[in-house]
């Protein structure tokens, strides 16, 4: 393993993040606050409680997931797409590093950035609602797993994308709707039976449900299934990345 190279990619990616640290820090704080104002105050005053948890607190796991998932994807996708786009990828291809090491560097950095934002949102949320985390270790594990698996997913999108539109396509048209419809801001049990069934086909539901379980010890689906879902998703992404590596698809002609 060329650890120095992995660290070099990681540091280089993180330096981009630190160059714009104020944006990285301020935007999640503002957007979280806005969600609390709109969802927590406006809707929360009508819903009051969901299965014994105040609505304001109830949406916190979903809010964190919303940002963490989109950030993981966009950071990783942009991270690898950018060198492809401007051509600096030549250096990675001519260096004595394996594709796996390149993935580790980029995905590690993208996951770290997303994790940072997740933590910022969690802290911000604390100013609005009282949070007692039921399973803190599981919460951290879920958060880290989500960051990593979606950064892997984002990396694949970055390799696949041929232009900036495609880079935005999957996150905007597929992932964001799935997150919103995956029970970020409501419990599935609040839906009519037909839609409950439909929602169970949404993979993001299992993530948010598991994450919420770590917070409040309550879930839409059993925690075991949530773990299985995220493991499957990670496995799928790793499989696709392995294929890309074998074939050099869209990287090496």
């Amino acid at each position: 393993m060329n650890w120095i190279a992995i660290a070099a990619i990681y540091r280089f990616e993180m330096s981009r993040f630190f160059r714009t640290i104020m944006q990285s820090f301020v935007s999640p704080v503002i957007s979280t606050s806005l969600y609390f104002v709109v969802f927590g105050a406006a809707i929360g005053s009508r819903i009051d409680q969901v299965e014994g948890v105040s609505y304001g607190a109830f949406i916190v796991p979903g809010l964190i997931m919303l940002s963490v998932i989109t950030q993981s994807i966009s950071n990783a996708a942009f991270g690898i797409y950018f060198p492809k786009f401007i051509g600096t990828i030549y250096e990675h291809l001519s260096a004595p590093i394996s594709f796996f090491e390149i993935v580790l560097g980029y995905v590690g950095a993208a996951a770290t950035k997303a994790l940072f934002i997740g933590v910022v949102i969690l802290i911000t949320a604390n100013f609005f609602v009282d949070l007692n985390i039921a399973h803190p270790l599981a919460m951290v594990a879920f958060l880290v797993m989500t960051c990593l698996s979606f950064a892997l997913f984002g990396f694949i999108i970055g390799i696949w994308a041929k232009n900036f539109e495609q880079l935005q396509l999957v996150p905007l048209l597929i992932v964001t709707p799935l997150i919103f419809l995956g029970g970020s801001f409501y419990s599935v049990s609040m839906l009519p039976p037909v839609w409950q069934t439909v929602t169970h086909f949404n993979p993001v539901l299992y993530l948010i449900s598991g994450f919420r379980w770590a917070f409040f010890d309550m879930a839409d689906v059993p925690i075991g299934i949530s773990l299985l879902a995220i493991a499957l998703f990670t496995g799928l992404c790793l499989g696709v990345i392995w294929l890309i590596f074998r074939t050099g698809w869209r990287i090496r002609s």
Partner: protein
Amino acid sequence: MAAILSVKDLRKVYDGGFEALKGVSLDIEEGEILALLGPNGAGKTTLISAVCGLVTPSSGSVTVGGHDILRDYRAARSLIGLVPQEVVVEQFETVRNTVRLSRGLFGKPRNDALVEEILRKLSLWDKRDNQIKELSGGMKRRVLIAKALAHEPRVLFLDEPTAGVDVALRKDMWDIVAEMKADGVTIILTTHYIEEAEAIADRIGVITRGELLLVQEKAELMRQMGRKQLEVQLTAPIETLPASLADFGLEIGQGGETLIYSYDTHAERTGITKLLNAISDAGLTLRDVQTRQSSLEDIFVNLVEEDA
């Protein structure tokens, strides 16, 4: 000397079916400067890209320092530095950071003293903390060279290092190349500019349509391929050649005032004595005589045209 880079029957067929390399074989000795000359689309960049790992060869083999570039890619690639043809840089990064990244990518531990030395050598030290977007085009090219040198390669590929570069900078580049050669680095460069190959290369390879037409010592190439021309200026212009001079293959130039005779310097007889006698027998009087050696450019054009 041992070959540090050995290319054997290298072929590359791109997905569209275009055969960019048609079985190129080439040995490059340690410490030499090889210039690859060829028109656009000849396969120069594909050859370099295949050796450096940017393009997967369809068949054939390449070893660098004895290491196969596919089976033993880590050892092979750590010996190689690549300066690409296009100026591709991270515009928002600083010069020093991007050079450090390059060193790291090759698995070499951070070495600020070395990075400083490289940046000073390339006159980039004053700009070390500038964002690359603030630099001029020529400076950016230097950054690419600095990046390629950051991991102390033994073999350096320069893909058209002076394309679109002004004269002063081109001379600078040549100096840099000479310095690197003095440090023992083997250099392979591609170029359109014959004068560049003539000025700095030890050996010259001519490549066209995916085939390596020849690789030869520059001096040897010039000697073998070099034809000389004898230009005879006459005191009075002539309109037609006298019949006695018909067999010499002369050209008439400058409105009939000069006769141009081409000859091979390596032929047993150059035919000059015979020609001069024949001119004098024909009653023509000479004002001046001069000879001209054909340049590498002429040789190159001849070769590529012969192949067409």
